[in-house]
C-alpha cells in the first residue's frame, strides 16, 4: 500500500529563488499596467508578476503550455490565484515585454489587477455536478467574453468581484461578491415514492428542509412536499436522489449585487437580490450577460472613485439603485426567510 497522510508538497520547494530570498521582506508594490505588478523588497529586489486569465477547466495540454511559458520567462515557476488566474513571477524586468507579447500571441489575456473585473470564481455546473441548476463554465466563458475589456483595463471605480454558483449550495464565496450569479430552481422536487426509502433515510430527508415543507408519508414509506412551503433550495435532493428538482423549463439564474469580503473601509457584506430570475439560455446566456454588463456599466458611471459596488449602493440607497438600473422592485426582493426583519427599514430616513 502506498504511503498516506504525507500532505502537500512543501511550498518552500516550489517558490522561485527571488521569493525565497525576499520572503516576508516585501516593502511595497505598484501596478505597472493592468495585469502587471511590481513588488519591491527591503533588499531592493524587484519582482514582476504577470497575471493571466485562465479557463479554469483546463486540459493537461494547457497546463503544459503554461509550463513552457514559465520555463522561458519565470525560471520554471508559476502560481495560481484564488480567482483561478495564472501568475508568472519574473525577476527580470527585461523579460516582461517579451512575455506579454508571447501571451498576446497565444491568446491569453493579461489583466485582473487593480480596478478591474478579475477572473470569475465558479463551480462545476453541468460539466461535472449532479445538483446544478445551470452551467457554470459556459456562463462564465460568455460573461468573460462580454466583460473582456473590464479584465484587461482598469475602467471601474474599484475592483469588481463576480462569482457564479450553479446551485444554492454555492461552493465558493458567491454570496459575498460584488455581482453574484446563482443557479436557481423554481418548482418543488418531484418525488419517486418507490425509491425514497431505498436511497435515503427518511428522517434525514425531513430534517434537510429549511422550511419544514417535507412531511413523512408512512403509507408509501416515502415523504410529501408541501408546495406552499417549498422554496426550491434542492437540499432534499442532495440528501435523497429520489427527489430530483432539475427542470429544464423553469431553472435559471438569479443575480445578487453589492457583496464583498474585504474589510477595507466598510465591513464585509452579503450580496443582495437585484434580479430574481433570468432563463437558462445556453450556449451564450445572452440575457444574463447583458444584465451583468448593464449592472456593471451603471455602477461604473455613477460610483465615486474607490467605491465598491455595495458601498456605492449604500451611499445612494437601494431606492436609487433600482431607479438608476431600471430594474423592477418586486415582492421577491423583500425577504421572508429566517433573518428577514433585519432587512426591514426602521427609520424615516430614506430617499424618494
Amino acid at each position: 500500500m502506498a504511503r498516506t497522510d504525507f500532505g502537500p508538497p512543501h511550498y518552500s520547494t516550489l517558490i522561485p529563488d527571488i521569493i525565497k530570498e525576499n520572503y516576508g521582506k516585501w516593502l511595497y508594490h505598484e501596478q505597472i499596467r493592468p495585469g502587471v505588478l511590481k513588488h519591491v523588497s527591503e533588499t531592493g529586489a524587484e519582482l514582476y508578476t504577470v497575471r493571466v486569465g485562465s479557463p479554469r477547466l483546463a486540459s493537461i495540454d494547457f497546463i503544459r503550455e503554461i509550463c513552457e511559458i514559465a520555463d522561458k520567462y519565470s525560471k520554471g515557476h508559476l502560481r495560481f490565484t484564488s480567482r483561478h488566474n495564472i501568475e508568472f513571477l519574473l525577476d527580470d524586468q527585461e523579460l516582461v515585454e517579451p512575455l506579454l507579447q508571447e501571451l498576446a500571441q497565444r491568446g491569453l489575456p493579461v489583466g485582473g489587477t487593480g480596478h478591474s473585473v478579475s477572473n470569475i470564481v465558479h463551480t462545476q455546473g453541468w460539466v461535472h455536478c449532479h445538483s446544478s441548476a445551470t452551467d457554470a463554465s459556459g456562463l462564465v466563458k460568455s460573461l468573460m467574453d462580454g466583460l473582456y475589456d473590464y479584465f484587461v483595463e482598469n475602467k471601474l471605480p474599484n475592483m469588481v468581484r463576480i462569482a457564479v454558483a450553479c446551485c444554492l449550495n454555492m461552493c465558493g464565496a458567491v454570496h459575498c461578491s460584488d455581482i453574484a450569479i446563482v443557479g436557481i430552481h423554481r418548482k418543488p422536487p418531484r418525488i419517486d415514492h418507490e425509491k425514497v426509502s431505498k436511497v435515503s433515510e427518511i428522517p434525514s430527508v425531513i430534517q434537510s428542509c429549511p422550511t419544514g415543507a417535507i412531511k413523512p408519508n408512512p403509507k408509501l414509506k416515502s415523504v410529501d412536499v408541501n408546495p406552499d412551503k417549498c422554496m426550491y433550495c434542492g437540499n432534499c435532493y442532495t440528501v435523497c436522489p429520489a427527489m430530483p428538482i432539475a427542470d429544464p423549463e423553469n431553472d435559471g439564474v438569479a443575480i445578487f449585487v453589492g457583496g464583498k469580503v474585504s474589510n477595507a473601509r466598510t465591513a464585509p457584506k452579503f450580496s443582495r437580490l437585484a434580479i430574481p430570475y433570468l432563463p437558462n439560455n445556453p450556449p451564450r446566456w445572452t440575457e444574463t450577460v447583458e444584465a451583468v454588463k448593464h449592472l456593471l456599466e451603471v455602477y461604473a458611471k455613477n460610483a465615486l472613485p474607490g467605491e465598491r459596488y455595495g458601498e456605492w449602493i449604500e451611499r445612494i440607497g437601494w431606492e436609487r439603485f433600482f431607479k438608476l438600473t431600471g430594474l423592477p422592485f418586486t415582492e421577491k426582493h423583500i425577504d421572508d426567510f429566517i433573518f428577514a426583519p433585519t432587512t426591514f427599514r426602521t427609520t424615516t430616513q430614506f430617499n424618494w
Partner: protein
Amino acid sequence: MANEEQKTPLLDQLEEGRWPSFVKEIKKAAAKNKKAEALLGQLELSYTEKKVHWKHGGIVGVKGYGGGVIGRYSDLPEQFPDAAEFHTIRVNQPAGWFYTTEALRKLCDIWEKYGSGLTNFHGTTGDAILLGIDTDKLQACFDELAEAGFDLGGSGSDLRTPSCCVGPARCEFACFDTLDVCHEITMEFQNELHRPMWPYKFKIKIAGCPNDCVASIARADLSVIGTWRDAIRVDQEEVRAYVESGFDIQGMVVDKCPKKAVKFNAETREIFIDNETCTRCMHCINEMPKALRVGKEGGATLLIGAKAPIVKSAFMSWVIIPFMEMKPPYTELKDFVRTITDWWDENGKTRERIGETIYRLGMPKFLRDTGIKPVPQMVTAPRANPYYFWYPEEVK
C-alpha cells in the same frame, strides 16, 4: 480519434470570443482521450436539454482514505459509456498555489496515463482537481501521485483542504506567515482531512490581512485573518512623494477613513494616524502602500462560522479570538482548532456546520463549553433584550 458522428453545435459557439475557452480545452483532451470525448458529448446534450446528466456521487476511494475522491456517474451510461464513471480526485495544493513546472508536469503525466486529461486549476476550496477517472484506475493513479509527492485533499464531512493567500511570499501586507500556517495546519490535521468523522464539512481559510483575498470571512468555518496590535508605520518622505505625484490624499485617504483616524497636514505634508481609533481596515495602506505599512506586532483574528445559505441562511464568520500570535509551531492555533471541532463534534447534528450549531445552541453556551472568555470584540453591540440564562452557581 475525433468521432465523426459527435457533433457539438452549441458548445462550438463557446470556442468563439476573446476569453480562453473551456470547450477548446475539452476538445484538446478529447482528441487524445475517450473519457474527455464522452464528456463533450454529454455536455452538448445538457446544453440541448438544459439539464444536468450526472448522478449523485457513489462511494469510491483509495485505500486508507475516506475522502479526497468524489464518485461521479453519468445518468446516460449506455449513451456515453466512456463517461459512465467520471470520478474526481482532489489533490491537496501547495500553500499559496505555487508550483514548479516540474511538479505540474508530473501531475500532467500521471493524469494523462490514468484520467481524462481534464483538470480544474483550481477548485473553489483550493485543491487541484483531476476531473474524470474510472473506478478501477483510482488506486494506481493515487499510488503514482503519492510517489510524486502529491497527497489527496478533503471531501465529505471532514476538514476540507485548508488554503491561504499569497502572504509573505509576495505581499507586503501579510501580518503573519500564511503559507507556513496553512502547511502546518494541513499536516497537523491529516487524519481529520482524510477521514470524514465530523457532522459536516469544516473549512479553514487563512488570509494575511483584512483585505482577505481568500474570502475566508464568507466561506470558512474557521477564518484566520491577519491583523496587528501596534501602530501603522508611516514613512513621511513617501507621503510627500505621493503629494508631489498629484495623489489626492485628502479625498482618497483622509475622507474615506471609516473611523476618521487619519489626519493630513497639507503644510508639512505629513500624515498622522490615531491608532487607538483606527480599526485596521487596510484602506489607507491599500491606497498608499509605499508610505504606509501594517504594524510590526502582527498576528491574526480568529473568526468562526461562515457558510453559504444552505440550510438555514448564510453566515459570515464571527470574531472569537480578537488576536492570536502566529508563531511556529502554532500550538495555540492547533489547540484552538481541536477545542472547537471537538465541541462541534459533540453538539452538532448531521449536516450542520459549526456556525449553525453555535447559532442553534447560542454563542454563550459555545463560549462556556469551550472555556473562551467573552470580550466586547465579539459583538457589534450587546444584546437589547433581558432574556438571558443564569446558572445555579451564579444564584443563591
